[in-house]
């Protein structure tokens, strides 16, 4: 074991030049209800000039606090209670107001998650960007020209037109480009990107990430990239620091850390993500037991000790220093050498669960035909979708925002009334388009787990009331029978009795989603719609919820319509996959066939847009431009405006291709024949499947 701890400032910058950013033993304290709570403890890292450093952590880890503390933007109840910061040799913590303003104006730029909130809604985009140049002393005309030039650099194709727009007239991706243009306008020494693509769709995210990478080359900017998304960090950063509960636990070159993590937390975190073609019928995901410590709790010893499988007595008493793993890597763990062999918290084997078995029933469970939904007379959220859901399967629904995923789910549930001519049948019987007109025994069979448990659970009701209500209303249970079923449900989603009396606000995100799942399964549904059930959750919580859904599917014989933008999750859970684009089915087929290809060009683009921890795919195909408006869909094939494989014949613009089935069960809506798609995509297929 390496006994010597690392020097306090470990940086890989070339000798001689001072780092662009160095943070030494930074402590940040928030005063909450009169009590000081330590939000960052002893954070030390540095970024060399021109380097890209990633700060990764779950919510509550203190990522954003780091970013705010660097430029003294902490909210009024927060303060730096220890340590030093140096940006380009300047100390923002001790400088006066004027110098600080100067630092924020010239030396550091920040880009946040919500571009809409970073731009002033009442000032035209052009003027906002030009303002940055005016402040630098340029005349009005020069500033406008510079702004236009800057917009061109962030690959906005028609800068003059965009400059005349107000921020709300720009799409999310476009607005984020404008924000990046503003951030880079003064060639800052340090660019801080705080979850810059989290609010964007996958294909747009890919474009923005590419843009940031290209601009970094061009401007030679030093970047601090903050994200909860490990794959994005892996793609964008040279080095990475893993933050947990306000402490950096591991640091090193991004590739090395993600390929061979040496802290139990990093190891656990990476195992929570379904990778390399992992599937629900091959194994269960690993989880990290326990919870993030409450901020500000006094910790003796290692902060991760209560959740660590390698914990020894020593960890509970002594705070581990940074150990050098090798010349460029550090890990704050006494047992960093054993970390890769961290015992699993959840067995990989699929538990033997009662239930399941051939249902014997024939034909698909749900059939949707000619499903259309027009909002406000012109927005075609769904345009003639035909879809069947087989008994006991998980049908994964994939597509960017605006593709009609959620509308499809709501139509199925009867929460949105489709256009006339749409039919939904279940077990061969037609369903009323309005849930209020559906009899209770039909309502019972269709339930949903919403994306956001805060919105889905009535915050004024106790957990007991939340779960009991559908049991009483739909399953007609009362008294001891209801109590028995309630206990059964609680146990199956791994909640405890003490949770029953609590309100949702007293539960963590993961526990809330368990309540929502228990509520949905209560009445014994046949189909459960899962609408992005884990997108509001942290990675370590997500894994447990996915395992739970996989287990419940077996015990309760449920059929899932699983909606997600995360292809890894869809692949893990789904038996078949549907790809939607502008309210149309572009591709449908068995999960592994869809992933293996050949796929629809849109599916191909979607797959290659998503950054992966399993290494960069060669020769990504890239989409440019924005998703067209559903109010005014393109002629012919709706994807032709963005399709990189558009035919030169003009067929794509003029006629909408039919959904044709070249392989059994695998349908693609494209003019290009399957064999040709296979040829085109041969060189760049999705990474090998079934890596286990």
């Amino acid at each position: 074991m390496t006994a010597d701890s690392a020097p306090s400032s470990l940086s890989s910058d070339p000798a001689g030049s001072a780092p662009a950013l160095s943070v030494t033993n930074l402590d940040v304290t928030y005063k909450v209800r009169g009590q000081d709570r330590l939000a960052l403890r002893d954070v030390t890292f540095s970024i060399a000039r021109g380097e890209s450093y990633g700060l990764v952590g779950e919510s509550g880890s203190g990522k954003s606090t780091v970013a705010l503390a660097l430029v003294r933007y902490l909210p009024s109840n927060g303060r730096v209670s220890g340590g030093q910061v140096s940006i380009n040799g300047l100390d923002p913590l001790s400088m006066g107001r004027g110098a600080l303003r100067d630092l924020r104006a010239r030396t550091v730029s920040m880009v946040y998650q919500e571009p809409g909130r970073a731009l002033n809604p009442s000032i035209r985009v052009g003027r906002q960007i030009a303002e940055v140049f005016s402040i630098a002393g340029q005349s009005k005309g020069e500033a406008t020209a510079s702004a236009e030039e800057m917009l061109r650099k962030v690959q906005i194709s028609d800068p003059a037109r965009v400059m005349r727009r107000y921020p709300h007239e720009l799409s999310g991706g476009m607005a984020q480009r404008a924000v990046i243009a503003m951030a880079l306008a003064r060639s800052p020494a340090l660019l801080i990107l705080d979850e810059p693509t989290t609010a964007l769709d996958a294909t747009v995210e890919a474009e923005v990430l590419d843009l940031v990478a290209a601009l970094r080359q061009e401007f030679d900017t030093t970047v601090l990239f903050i994200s909860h998304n490990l794959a994005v960090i892996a793609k964008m950063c040279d080095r990475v620091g893993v933050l947990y509960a306000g402490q950096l636990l591991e640091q090193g070159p991004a590739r090395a850390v993600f390929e061979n993590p040496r802290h139990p937390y990093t190891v656990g975190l990476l195992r929570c993500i379904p990778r390399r073609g992992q599937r629900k019928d091959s194994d269960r995901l690993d989880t990290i037991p326990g919870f993030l410590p409450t901020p500000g709790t006094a910790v003796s010893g290692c902060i991760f000790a209560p959740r660590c499988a390698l914990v020894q007595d020593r960890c509970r008493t002594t705070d581990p220093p940074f150990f050098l793993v090798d010349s460029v890597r550090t890990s704050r763990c006494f047992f960093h050498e054993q970390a890769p062999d961290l015992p699993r918290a959840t067995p990989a084997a699929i538990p033997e669960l009662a239930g399941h078995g051939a249902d014997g029933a024939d034909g698909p469970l749900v059939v949707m035909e000619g499903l259309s939904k027009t909002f406000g007379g012109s927005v075609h959220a769904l345009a003639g979708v035909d879809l069947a859901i087989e008994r006991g399967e998980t049908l994964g629904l994939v597509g960017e925002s605006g593709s009609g995923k959620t509308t499809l789910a709501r139509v199925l549930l009867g929460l949105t009334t489709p256009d006339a001519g749409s039919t939904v049948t279940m077990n061969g019987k037609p369903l009323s388009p309005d849930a209020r007109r559906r009899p209770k025994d039909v309502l019972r069979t269709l339930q949903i787990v919403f994306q956001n448990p805060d919105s889905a659970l009535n915050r004024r009701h106790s957990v007991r009331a939340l779960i009991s209500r559908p049991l009483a209303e739909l399953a007609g249970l009362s008294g001891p029978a209801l109590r028995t079923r309630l206990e059964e449900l609680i146990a199956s989603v791994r909640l405890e009795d003490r949770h029953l009396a609590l309100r949702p606000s007293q539960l963590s995100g993961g526990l809330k989603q368990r309540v929502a799942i228990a509520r949905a399964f209560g009445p014994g549904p046949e189909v459960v719609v899962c609408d992005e059930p884990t997108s509001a959750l942290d990675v370590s919580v997500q894994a447990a919820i996915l395992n739970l859904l996989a287990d419940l599917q077996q015990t309760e014989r449920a059929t899932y319509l699983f909606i997600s933008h995360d292809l890894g999750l869809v692949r893990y859970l789904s038996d078949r996959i549907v790809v939607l684009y502008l309210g149309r089915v572009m591709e449908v087929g068995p999960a592994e066939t869809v992933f293996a290809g050949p796929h629809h060009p849109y599916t191909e683009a979607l797959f290659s847009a998503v950054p992966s921890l399993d290494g960069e795919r060669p020769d990504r195909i890239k989409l440019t431009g924005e998703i067209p408006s559903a109010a005014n869909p393109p002629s012919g094939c709706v994807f032709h405006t963005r399709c990189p494989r558009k035919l030169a014949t003009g067929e794509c613009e003029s006629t909408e291709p039919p959904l044709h089935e070249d392989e059994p069960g695998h349908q693609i809506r494209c003019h290009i024949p399957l064999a040709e798609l296979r040829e085109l995509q041969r060189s760049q297929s999705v990474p090998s499947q079934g890596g286990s």
Partner: protein
Amino acid sequence: MSGLLQPPVEPSGALPAEPAGSAGSLGMTTGYLGATAATAVAAASRAKPTATVWRLLLRRTAFWVGAGIVLFWIVCAIFGHAFAPYSPLTQQLLFTNAAPSSAHWFGTDGLGRDVLSRVITGSRDILIITPLATILGTILGTILGLAMGYFGGVFDLIAGRIVEAFLALPIVIIAFLFIVALGPSTGTLIIVIGLVFTPLIARTVRAAAQVERQQDYVAASRLFGEGPVRVMFSEILPNVVPAILVEFTVRLGYAIFAVATLSFLGFGITPPTPDWGADIYANYIGLLSGYWWQTLFPALAIASLVIAVILIADSIEQVLAS
């Protein structure tokens, strides 16, 4: 696992969202102001246990001051006759229009009655009428507002126009119509003010209910087969209670004004029963002769009560929105 300490995403946004000060404006028909503030409360209030609300409330000086003043007037209303220096009805015709002195701290009125005693005992009717009228208006307004917010569509459109038509009429005209029809009495005042407040409160509740209706739990309850009444009163209502509470206290302040106004106009309490509004009406002619104490002290009493209620309303709003 949501980080308790996680600061707001953008640094410049660290300014706390100040709730719009509805209580600051005292216009009789400013329904919109009330509505926005209460909606902010509805949106911001994550279910806080009642105990927490009380704890936060008791920490506010404004709440203590307001509660103290209200309590003082309640004591006066109940026990005032016992500790008032004179009987409020006794006329001392030798001491009419006497300026404040050690014998009569607040002076006497045109009939030689002690103004201090009349102020002390004059709070009774106002303190009976205002809460009852406000409760009536809140109940009716909540039912109407919930229905408008939940059903939306044509019902909301029609009910909304009627509500607006109501709001367009000055309170005095409406009150006059009712009092002519029903005859002046305490009961009439309660009904009149309650009905006048109904559309105002309905508007606030409607706005809050509309926010709630968009929440997924309402969709979920529909999937559990809950009917509209159940969804409105068992799902949505508990979540708009904070907004209703704020609206109630704000309206209570307005109700005091309304009662005082109506009794000033002679629609309310009949003389010689001491009443602040009626006393101002009875004595304001005396202002021309310089007898300022006859109107000032009852007016200050009204003001103190209104301010006290507003202080309480403000505290509740801030606590619920924090």
